[in-house]
C-alpha cells in the first residue's frame, strides 16, 4: 500500500481515523493507556478461567467418532466428515448455506459493486487466470468427487470456484452475458433450493423425516446437493468479493 490519499476535510475526522489513514503512525487505539492495562489484566484473568476449563477436561474424551463410524455405511458416503456434513447433521449445512445467501442479500442491499479492487491489471494478472482458472476448476471438480471417500467436498471445491471468480474479476474480465443478473441469482440460491426441495420431499415420503436420505439413494442425493452447493458457494464468494450487487 502506498501513501494514502489525504481527503479534503480529513482534518475534521476523528483523530483515530486520521491515524488509521496515515500508514506511518501507530495503530489507532480507542482506549487510554491506563484503561488498556486494566483491560489486559482483566483479560489475563479471563484467560486463566478459560485455561482452567481446558485443563479440567478429562481423558479419554467422550466424542462421537465411534457413533459416526458405526452408522457410516448407512450414510451413502465413506468419508466420515462428509457423512456428518451432508447426512447426520445435514440440517446444519443447509442453514449454513442460507447464511451465505443471506450475506449475499445483505451485501447487495447495501450498494452496487464497485468493480474489482480498482487497479488496471498488470500483465501478470491479465494472463494468470487463463492458465490458472481451468486448473482450479479441474481441482474443484476433483475435490467435490473425492469428498465422498476422502477429505474434500463442496466447501473446499466451492471456495476454489470462488477463487476462480475473484481471479477473473481481478484480471478485468467481465462476466459473459449469460452469467448476468438473473442467472447469478439462480446460481446463488441453487444449493439451498436443491437442499430444501430434496429435504422436503424426503419428509413427505411415507415414514420419512426432513432431510432423511434413503440409504440406497443417499450417495446420489448427497452428490447432487454437493454439486449445487459448490456452484452456489463459488458464486456467492466471488460476488461477496465484488462488494455489492452487479
Amino acid at each position, binding site marked *: 500500500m502506498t501513501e494514502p*490519499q489525504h*481527503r479534503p476535510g480529513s482534518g475534521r475526522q476523528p483523530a483515530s481515523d486520521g491515524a488509521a489513514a496515515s500508514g506511518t503512525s501507530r495503530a489507532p487505539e480507542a482506549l487510554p493507556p491506563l484503561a488498556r492495562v486494566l483491560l489486559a489484566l482483566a483479560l489475563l484473568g479471563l484467560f486463566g478461567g478459560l485455561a482452567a476449563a481446558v485443563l479440567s477436561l478429562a481423558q479419554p474424551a467422550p466424542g462421537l467418532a465411534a457413533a459416526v463410524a458405526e452408522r457410516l455405511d448407512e450414510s451413502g458416503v465413506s468419508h466420515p466428515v462428509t457423512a456428518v456434513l451432508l447426512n447426520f447433521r445435514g440440517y446444519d449445512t443447509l442453514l449454513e448455506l442460507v447464511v451465505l445467501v443471506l450475506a449475499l442479500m445483505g451485501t447487495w442491499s447495501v450498494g452496487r459493486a464497485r468493480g474489482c*479492487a480498482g487497479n488496471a491489471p498488470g500483465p501478470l494478472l491479465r494472463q494468470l487466470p487463463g492458465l490458472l482458472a481451468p486448473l482450479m476448476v479441474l481441482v474443484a471438480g476433483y475435490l467435490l468427487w473425492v469428498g465422498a471417500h476422502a477429505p474434500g467436498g463442496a466447501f473446499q471445491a466451492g471456495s476454489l470456484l470462488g477463487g476462480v471468480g475473484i481471479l477473473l474479476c481481478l484480471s478485468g474480465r467481465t462476466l459473459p452475458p449469460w452469467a448476468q443478473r438473473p442467472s447469478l441469482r439462480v446460481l446463488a440460491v441453487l444449493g439451498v433450493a436443491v437442499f430444501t426441495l430434496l429435504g422436503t420431499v424426503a419428509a413427505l415420503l411415507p415414514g420419512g423425516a426432513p432431510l432423511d436420505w434413503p440409504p440406497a439413494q443417499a450417495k446420489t442425493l448427497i452428490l447432487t446437493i454437493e454439486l449445487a452447493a459448490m456452484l452456489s458457494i463459488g458464486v456467492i464468494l466471488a460476488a461477496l468479493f465484488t462488494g455489492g450487487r452487479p
Partner: protein
Amino acid sequence: MAGLSLLDWALDGLLALLLLWLAWRALASPELFRAVVLFIAFGLVLALVWARLYAVDVALAEMAIGAGVTGALLLAALVRLEPPIGRGRQDARDGEVYDHD
C-alpha cells in the same frame, strides 16, 4: 497421544509460537496492509496446524476460505477504504457524494 516424541513437541511448539506471533502482529501492526497480509499468513499456518491435528478437511477449507477468500475480501475492502493517491476518481465514479460530517 502418549507416544508423542520430543520432535512432535518441538514441531507443535514451533507452530504454536508462530501462530501466536502472527496473530499478535496482525492485530498490532500499525499498517493496515501489513496487518492483512500477516492475517493471511496466520491462516496458512493455521491450515498447517489443522493438518497436524489430522483434520485435513478443515485444513483445506482454512487454506481456501480462511486464508484465501477472507484475505481477498480484506484486501479488496482495504483498497476501497483507503484509496492510494491519484485514484480518488474511483470513489466518485459511482456518483456517490461524500459528505464529510
